[in-house]
């Protein structure tokens, strides 16, 4: 049963990711990325990380992607023009190389089994995450607040019309 769920949502994630590349208008790419984010969130739930799954949806799909969609809608971009440039042949080299890399990775990882013996129990509850985040990782946590402040100031400065 859990395998069916895994394959279903993995297929959605991969399909949506490929759709991000294939679409000509960048708004459709952003919407496919939102679909991929929700599929990956369901995979997080299958991996016993339920708090992280919901946080992924709230932060990534609900805030970062809203930012992307706003910028795309306000800039009112036309569809990507078809140009010669350097990318025709890049596609013909890139995709076969990528597939070769993929075959390499898959054959390496295919035989990786679950850890021998019993799998250690992990509950990704908010209590466990909070316990670890505020005792072992409290310094990086405080530094990220500084990081967000700097990003905020940087975004305001860059987007101003006249400095």
């Amino acid at each position, binding site marked *: *049963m*859990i395998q069916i769920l895994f394959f279903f949502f993995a297929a959605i994630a991969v399909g949506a990711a490929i759709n991000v590349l294939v679409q000509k208008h960048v*708004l459709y790419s952003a*919407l496919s990325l*939102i679909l991929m984010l*929700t599929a990956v969130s369901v995979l997080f*739930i*299958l991996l*016993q990380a*339920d*708090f992280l799954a*919901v*946080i992924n*949806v*709230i932060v990534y*799909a*609900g*805030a970062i992607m*809203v930012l992307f*969609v*706003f910028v795309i*809608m*306000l800039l009112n971009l036309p569809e990507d023009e078809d140009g010669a440039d350097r990318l025709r042949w890049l596609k013909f080299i890139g995709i076969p190389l990528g597939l070769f890399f993929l075959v390499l990775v898959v054959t390496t990882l295919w035989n990786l089994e679950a850890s021998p013996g019993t799998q250690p129990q992990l*509950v*990704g*509850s*908010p209590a466990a995450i909070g316990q670890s985040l505020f005792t072992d990782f409290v310094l990086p946590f405080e530094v990220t607040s500084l990081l967000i402040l700097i990003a905020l100031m940087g975004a305001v400065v860059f987007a101003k019309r006249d400095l």
Partner: protein
Amino acid sequence: MIEYVTGSEFIVLMIKIFVIFGGVMGALAYLSWLERKLMARVQMRPGPTRVGPFGLLQPIADGLKFLFKEDVIPTHSNRFLFIAAPIVSLVPALLSFSVIPFGPSLQITDLSVGLLFIFAVTSLGIYGIALGGWASNSKYPLMGAIRSSAQMISYELSLTLSVVGVLMIANTLSLAELVTAQQSTWLGIIPRWNIFLQPVAFVVYLVSAVAETNRLPFDLAESEQELVAGWHTEYSSMKFAMFMLAEYANVVTVSSLATIMFFGGWTGPMFGPALLQMALPTVWFLLKVSIFIFFYVLMRATVPRFRYDQLMRFGWKVLLPLSLANIVVTSFVVAIS
């Protein structure tokens, strides 16, 4: 986290789903009747009276009208997004009812992160508005959609931060446990509701919830005087009905959350025979939710509208610092005691 439901539990779950969602959809239809009647009485006129006694069949007539009306899709609109936007708006609005406890065992599922789940699906509902405005390819919807989505993401911050105080007191994110934490009483009479412990958070939550659902006095994005009808200008018949249903569903969701977090959910005085006692929690819950819905509708009928810059300034400069201060004070009190 994942549990498998088989056999008779599955049938019970299916019955619960049908009952809850059927009831919710019926309630949404009659919420439109309630709104029209109540607003009419405030404005000293009778409201719908012709269709059935007291106009009670008016939502059914409206539903039939929506089904049979011509479905107009503008020529230069983005067809796929135009049709998808009402669905993207309605599905998250209905999905949040799957974790709301209507009674001690009348809850479809009790997620351990139930409260965050509701906030997650609410933030996904913003896309319905943004895409609906964009896909209509016309200036009023686009302006209305951008303003409305910006307003919603701004007030989402103070909405989620205002409930952190309640979470610190109850130590859990699951909605069923939030309700059962408020079951006892102080001095035998005063119920242990969070409204007495977190009054500031309640006020901030209520104001943010009104702004989050785009209701008066925060509905500049869909007001008639400024923007024709905002992001749903170009929509007709069933798609418009879906947008309206989504808005009412959001209203019922935030009202239910307000009762669960601040007013004890389904707790209330128990009396009477055993059969009555089985139904009494749900009655208390629905009563409290109806009080909030009345409050919403009455506010729509009486209060004037905020201007957009006043709205954004209020959200960022007043509500957000207030909710942060509430978190700081609450954490001090919880840590000391």
